[in-house]
């Protein structure tokens, strides 16, 4: 059963990811990406990370994708490179190298049999909001605060770039 769920999710994720890079229109790419993200969220849930799955859905598939959609629709960029597509040198070598890279990655990681032994029994609240929060606000308090600053930087930066002046 679990296998089935996994394979459905995996195929969904990979297929929609492929779709992201194959779609002619950006809008379709965005929509495909949303599917991918949801599939990933699904797998998070299966990997005992329920909280992450939720955040993935809300933050990623929700917020970020809206941002993408918004930009895509705002820009009304109709020209797609597919219309003028000609597989040049760059495209060919790019594809070749990237595919080779992927193959290599898969090959090597496949051989990586020396993973630490799988923990068979996880604590019941593993990956729950409470357990994560416990770690976040104790051990990783500083990163959390740093994230705040990061977001502030993003705001300031966007303001700087979009020329918001009082």
């Amino acid at each position, binding site marked *: 059963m679990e296998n089935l769920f996994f394979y459905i999710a995996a195929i969904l994720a990979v297929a929609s990811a492929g779709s992201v890079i194959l779609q002619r229109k950006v809008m379709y790419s965005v929509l495909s990406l949303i599917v991918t993200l949801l599939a990933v969220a699904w797998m998070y849930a299966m990997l005992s990370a329920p909280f992450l799955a939720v955040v993935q859905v809300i933050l990623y598939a929700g917020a970020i994708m809206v941002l993408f959609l918004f930009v895509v629709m705002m820009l009304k960029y109709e020209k797609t490179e597919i219309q003028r597509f000609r597989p040049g040198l760059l495209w060919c070598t790019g594809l070749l190298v990237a595919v080779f890279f992927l193959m290599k990655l898969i090959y090597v990681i496949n051989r990586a049999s020396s993973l630490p032994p799988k923990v068979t029994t996880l604590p019941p609240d593993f990956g729950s909001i409470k357990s994560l929060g416990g770690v976040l606000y104790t051990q990783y*308090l500083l990163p959390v605060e740093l994230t705040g600053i*990061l977001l502030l*930087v993003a705001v300031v*930066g966007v303001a700087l*770039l979009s020329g918001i002046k*009082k």
Partner: protein
Amino acid sequence: MEITFPAVNIDSTVPQLIVALFAILALLVEVFSRSSRMVFATCLVGLHIALLRSLMQWGRGIPYESSLLAVDGYTTFFNVLFILIAMITLAISLSYVENTRVDGGKYYPLVLFATLGMMLLVSSMDLLMMFLSLELLSISMYMLVGSQRDKWVSTEAAIKYILTGAFASGFLLFGIALVYGATGTISFSKMESILGGLTGGVPPMLQIGIALMMVGLGFKIAMVPFHMWAPDVYEGAPTPITGLLSTGSKIAVVALILRLFSNPFIQVSSQWVGILWVLAVLSMTLGNVAALLQKNVKRMLAYSSIAHVGYLLVAFITLSTRGMEAILLYSAFYAVMGLAAFGCIASLTRAGGSTTAGEGERLKAEDYTSLGYTQPVQAAILSICLLSLAGIPLTAGFIGKLYLFGAAVNAGFVGLAVIAVLNSAVSLYYYLGLMLRMYALPGRFAPAEEPVGSLFGKLVLLVLGVTIIALGIYPTPLIGAVKGAVTALSAL
């Protein structure tokens, strides 16, 4: 489950906090006063306070909380260095920002945020902390690069930088994931003990993880072949930011690499020393040869900074105390030289800088013809920088190179040292060539040109120039500091 806050020694991170605080304060100042000079002043005051506070920590290792941040002599050394870099960047930005109509109110705080990123990066003891501070640094830099909104090159540089940068971050993240997978931890110290206890060969997962991390980190320090963005971004960015990019952000990542690779990853050094050997040679050679052909001064310096990364790697792969000292020393020297050089270029920008590419700035080598006679101060300082970059004795650059190559020779990498010195010889040609151009004797009736650059800017440059010479003649104090810092690093 009871949540207990870990015992945190806030005292140890006060400099970082001050920087963050003043950055936010500066933003508030901007909101209320609308004067970018006020913002500038706030930032500068904040940096001074942070500098003083950092100096108070000098030579003392203050534990913060061992798994995330290491506040030790090494960190303090770099904190001081980064604060100084930030101060210089601000100082050389002042007239440039005003000339080129950049929104200073946000520009200056972003420089501070970037500095914060560097400071945290150096003290990271954890892959998460490392990743976050690296991103803080990078994102601030993306924005700063694009801060000349009405100039296309700046925007293009920003988009190129963020695209490639994010791409590299992806590699870094995946690399971290694999390393985490192979070791089961993200803490440096735990990782070290785990890797130390490794038996039966290095897991391929770890190999690939380190490789991918090298891609991400190599991108940040513009190491060949991950350097391609650098010339473009350096050219397009506002010149003081180019200075910051080529010094601060690079040095911060180098410092991190030192901590990461010389502690946890040193256990598997056989895996990556060889490849770094090759990359060091490539970086030096490609950087120098490209700079040799380059006619655009900012790009030339960009390529030369790629070459300098190669020199740093030469010392790095010796993995010796001596090498670490050399890197620290050279980083400090390089910070001064690079900032001063870009500062000179920034300060030579003619007033009323405008919207299209390069106008107002002196980018082409021809723009520098006979500059020594019309803009004597900047030309003189730039000459000192060039001499120092070339490694001519009695400048800081020479001492730095001496230490770098000395480390290589000491560790038995004589072949590498030979390649490095030959590269150094090649580099001399373009550095001195630019100098020669600056002092080309003007014709009798050469048109007079008004001196440009503010008095403040010139003063700052003068101080930098004198520092280069002074360090070249009497580097002992700095060497002492460096030795202390390295001791702290190896005492981990």
